[in-house]
């Protein structure tokens, strides 16, 4: 079944400044939206607004024609968020963190161990998240997306701190998800999935 996410006239102010004004886009199942813009243009803020972490000052966000803002709770099961912060407790191992999050949202049915192996953290399985290197922490929080059975992946700068192999991994994860009929919205300064059909939204010009 295909879904449709539509944004109309989104705008947001910060302090005295208008970060963005009247942003529109529409996204269907199986599509990827790349969000681009210079530093400080408001990409992170837009993404946080999309998944419900902050409120836009104006505009409507709808899912299959239904206004999401009307009743956020019904739509929470559809969005997953991957930001600058890991969202993991740093005293627990990645596995323990993921096992907890199992109970928070629908799962993709994948095995936690398997996901950890896929992200190349097999040897670090026993380490608390605190002891992982910068890139390893980013990898670990990718596992959250992989394990969730959620429609829309909202991703902020996924390539940060990753080596070439890790960047390839992100691309293939997103491609897989989109291929299975998911949606993804990705803010990044780098190119991604070259040669495949992606929508692009530029902000802050």
């Amino acid at each position, binding site marked *: 079944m295909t879904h449709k996410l539509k944004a109309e006239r989104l705008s947001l102010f910060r302090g005295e400044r208008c970060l963005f004004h009247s942003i529109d886009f529409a996204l269907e199942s199986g599509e990827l939206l790349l969000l681009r813009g210079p530093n400080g243009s408001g990409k992170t803020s837009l993404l946080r607004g999309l998944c419900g972490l902050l409120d836009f000052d104006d505009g409507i966000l709808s899912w299959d024609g239904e206004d999401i803002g009307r009743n956020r709770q019904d739509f929470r099961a559809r969005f997953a968020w991957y930001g600058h*912060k890991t*969202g993991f407790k740093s005293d627990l191992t990645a596995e323990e963190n993921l096992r907890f999050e199992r109970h928070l949202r629908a799962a993709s049915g994948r095995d936690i161990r398997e996901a950890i192996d896929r992200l190349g953290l097999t040897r670090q399985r026993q380490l608390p998240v605190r002891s992982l290197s910068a890139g390893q922490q980013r990898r670990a929080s990718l596992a959250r997306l992989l394990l969730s059975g959620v429609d829309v992946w909202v991703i902020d700068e996924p390539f940060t701190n990753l080596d070439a192999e890790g960047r390839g991994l992100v691309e293939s994860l997103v491609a897989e998800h989109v291929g299975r009929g998911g949606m993804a919205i990705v803010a990044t300064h780098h190119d991604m999935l070259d040669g495949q059909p992606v929508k692009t939204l530029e902000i802050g010009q």
Partner: protein
Amino acid sequence: MPGLAAGFLAMVQRDLLLVWRRPGDLLNPLVFFIMVCTLFPLAIGPDAEVLRDIGAGVTWVAALLAMLLSLNTLFLSDFEDGSLDQLLLSPQPLPLLALGKTLAHWMSTGLPLMVVSPMIVLTYKLPTDVVPVMMVTVALGTASLSLVGSIGAALTVGLHRGSTLLSLLVLPLAMPLLIFGARTVSLAAGDEPYFGGLNLLAAYLVGALALAPFATAAALRISNE
């Protein structure tokens, strides 16, 4: 989606696991409580009568302060490492998750305080048959404090303000607990009837249990913008 009970229990379990990994957090309020209770005789001097007079008061002030101080971090680490984002975005009802966190908080702060409170009875040379009353009042009072305090903690989490604001918010709500609690123990120590105080404490707890989780959930959404 996983069931409601599963989410609630997972929340409690995660927070207890965290405490287990860092027993320091568990000991924090406990050590503070014991510290306050032992520093007093040091500073005041060993006069047994004075000690007996202030025993109940010291215990309750120490318990209140210990709880207040531990509340500061209730949501702070979740806010800082981004896991609060994940909780807010979860389809699980937030009041339930908040209640889970509060329960774990009480189990790791109020419960230990309750367990050591008899020690204070001995240190301050109160009659030993006060012990059960002391334990019951401390249990009821700290549970109410956890609940009421969680609202304050949620309201102040994003403000980077340390615990002043939190104390100011929670203290007026906590004052009745302090006064009833200390009074009940004093009355019991003086062999007078004390059930009125206990009933009030219990009623307060029931009220807090019914209302606090919703207020906390609403406050968390506002604070995390």
